[in-house]
């Protein structure tokens, strides 16, 4: 029940295309869903986050879509650029806990 399942494991997208990464969770007590971006040799950095009271959040080219009934959320990267090539982690947390649960990560490569 604590797991966050992320797919795909790796993804190759042409420059200018849309990158989509999906995550699913079981624990309905989760109330915070962040996405992290990690470049090689660096620590992950918070990219964008959403709470379950909204179905979508957009920041620039990055959008989180949230489906509470399906217990799924996804990251969409519009007009994908080579600089977006990185590993992306979805995560889930609930307010009473001290830690968050990470997905297994998606290695995204944007081809020029």
């Amino acid at each position, binding site marked *: 029940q604590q797991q966050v399942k992320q797919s795909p494991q790796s993804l190759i997208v042409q420059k200018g295309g849309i990158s989509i990464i999906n995550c699913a969770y079981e624990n309905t007590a989760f109330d915070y869903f*962040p996405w992290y971006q990690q470049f090689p040799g660096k*620590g992950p950095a918070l990219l964008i986050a959403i709470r379950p009271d909204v179905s979508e959040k957009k920041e620039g080219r990055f959008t989180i879509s949230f489906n509470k009934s399906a217990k799924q959320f996804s990251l969409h990267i519009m007009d994908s650029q080579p600089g977006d090539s990185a590993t992306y*982690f979805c*995560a889930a947390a609930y*307010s009473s*806990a*001290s*830690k968050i649960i990470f997905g*297994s*990560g998606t290695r995204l490569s944007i081809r020029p």
Partner: protein
Amino acid sequence: SQTIHQWPATLVQPVGSPLSLECTVEGTSNPNLYWYRQAAGRGLQLLFYSVGIGQISSEVPQNLSASRPQDRQFILSSKKLLLSDSGFYLCAWSAGPGGYTFGSGTRLTVV
């Protein structure tokens, strides 16, 4: 502003040697602190977390230990390193659930 420092950046240690990795946070009080390990091309494995001085929660039984001697200091240790301890070690802090800030990591190679 808050900053997190983690060192060293890279480390090569022989099997059986001790380990000490240090992480410090500046600009905040009573942070939650975390140690993660990431194997090459793999996900983030939570090793330890701490919600206060002297309070350590272990997530995975292993050859490592953690200590929090001061409010903003978190130390990862081992008495005798194993080959399987190689990996990318990340320290992180948060003021609450979800808002993690990660350090720049330590690449540990056990030879």
